[in-house]
């Protein structure tokens, strides 16, 4: 690999500092016994203990994770099939229309989506709670997954499919053994995007929570009115640590399976 020049290195460091400094600052103060973010007094675990003592907060945290994982999964399935469907359309006009409709959903503001869902749910009599949050999270994640999977599908060489057909593969075989494995990096990327979107969405979720079901973003927002307490820092620290672990875990699994495949080829 070509060596980076000093200027680009400095720029890279600068970007990463801007990205990570606020998070590290927040986590640093979650260990502060002083009770505020003004000055660091001494090290303590008490804010983390407070998070674990507050069973309501833990339930909300777990709910947030459940909604994120499930909505991510469902949206990935729908979005992947949708992307395949869009690409396989012969009619160019139709294809472009569908893609534009998909993009409109991505750029439309969350408040609009949230308010529309609230009106829809109350109109058809759906009780606000887990189901309503899950459905709306799936809804705003699907267009993102479509967008992440699409490039992979487009870069795929169609002769791969033709070759598979020539060798006697059925439609099902083509989908399961050729297309899906080829686009799986896109699918994973789509899933992780959906996951993060769901984890940090406030605007849509705010409208559709109810009946005791709440997610972390909504809860932290109403806590913030009384000034952010260090419990919020602690819980953010926990979420960040778990995310970090997942990313590291994903990296190692990827690496292992890659080296396994290259060894198998030898």
């Amino acid at each position: 690999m070509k060596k980076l020049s000093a200027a680009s290195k400095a720029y890279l460091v600068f970007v990463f500092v801007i990205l990570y400094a606020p998070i590290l600052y927040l986590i640093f103060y979650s260990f502060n016994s002083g009770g505020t973010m003004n000055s660091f007094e001494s090290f303590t675990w008490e804010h983390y203990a407070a998070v674990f003592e507050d069973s309501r907060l833990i339930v909300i945290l777990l709910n947030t994770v459940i909604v994120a994982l499930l909505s991510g999964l469902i949206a990935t399935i729908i979005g992947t099939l949708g992307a395949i469907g869009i690409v396989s359309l012969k009619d160019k006009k139709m294809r472009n229309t569908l893609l534009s409709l998909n993009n409109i959903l991505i750029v439309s503001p969350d408040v609009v989506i949230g308010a529309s869902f609230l009106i829809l749910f109350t109109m058809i009599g759906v009780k606000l709670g887990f189901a309503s949050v899950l459905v709306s999270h799936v809804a705003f994640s699907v267009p993102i997954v479509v967008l992440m999977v699409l490039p992979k599908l487009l870069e795929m060489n169609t002769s791969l499919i033709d070759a598979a057909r020539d060798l006697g593969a059925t439609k099902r075989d083509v989908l399961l053994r050729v297309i899906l494995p080829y686009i799986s990096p896109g699918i994973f990327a789509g899933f992780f995007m959906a996951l993060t979107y769901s984890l940090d969405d406030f605007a849509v979720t705010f409208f559709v929570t109810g009946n005791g079901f709440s997610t972390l973003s909504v809860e932290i927002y109403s806590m913030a009115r009384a000034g952010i307490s260090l419990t919020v820092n602690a819980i953010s620290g926990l979420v960040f640590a778990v995310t970090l672990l997942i990313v590291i875990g994903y990296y190692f699994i990827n690496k292992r399976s890659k080296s396994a495949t290259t060894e198998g080829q030898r």
Partner: protein
Amino acid sequence: MRDLLQATIAIIIVCALLFVAVNQMESSGSSGSKDSLTIYNWGEYIDPELIGKFEEETGIKVTYETFDSNEAMMTKIEQGGSAYDVAVPSEYTIESMKEKDLLIPIDHALVPNLQYIHEDFLDLAFDKGNEYSIPYFWGTVGIVYNPNLIADHLTFESWEDLWDPSLKEKVFLVDSSREVIGMGLNSIRQSLNVKDDVLLREATDKLISLTPNIKAVIGDEITPLMVNNEAAVALTWSGQAADMLWENEELDFATPYEGSNIFFDNMIIPKTSKNVEGAHKFINFMLDPENAAQNADYVGYSSPNFAAWELMDEEVIGDERFYPSNEQRDTLEVYENLGLEWLGKYNEYFLEFKMSLK
């Protein structure tokens, strides 16, 4: 393909496990009873221990939800979809909720602890006879200041101190038309609820003469600014000021003698309630002097419960900044519902004032 399938199964298993964990945690607390209650309150506005105590005493399982503004809360209740049994809006919201027929009358026979509420907080204009609402916390509008950052002679016992030339570009105001126009009206010794163009004009002109001293008109961001010694003077609510004082002992709070606003947050039972009896039990529970005292200790707002005052720290109750004396309380005024037309005019004058800032 295999890794896709593996990942899917892994996600489903993790979700199932988390689901079981959540169910376990939610059902622990309740002693197997089907009786439940949903409380809708401001963020950080109750001592969590009290919820546990209430569940233990009555066997009713409490679901606790929070909101961050009167308007958001009212929208949720109006839309239905969620069965809230008790909510805690401010007085002007109670008036509009009454108008929209969103409330269930409170059966006073079921809340005997109402006797502990000081008479000053009962039978107020926004809800005569406390037909629909029961006091929860109250507070005033006043000035929080940092004595280290301003001249010594300023004590803010009078609104006039805000106009002091030494405060050039040091004053923060909350971005709320009733509070700011109200301050203008108070400073010319008028009622907060005047419906008179001449007086409103005069108050606005008085406010415009304050512009050299104003640094910004902002919202809740005032709290960290004051706490971190980055701002000197701010117009704000006593409850918010109590939070600031708790975190930064150098700060001080004053409610000027010319008069100011007094606000009340009250417990109500929305039309969506599915457990009206339980809601009454909860309201009565919160009015119990011991519980009220514990809650006031935790939250930091002023309690309307005189029996609780006796159980609380002398230093807190004796603090006239947050528990004003009777004479001072006489100068304080409750916001009345102005009606759409006059509310619009207040907003217009407030806008005019804000536009004069540059």
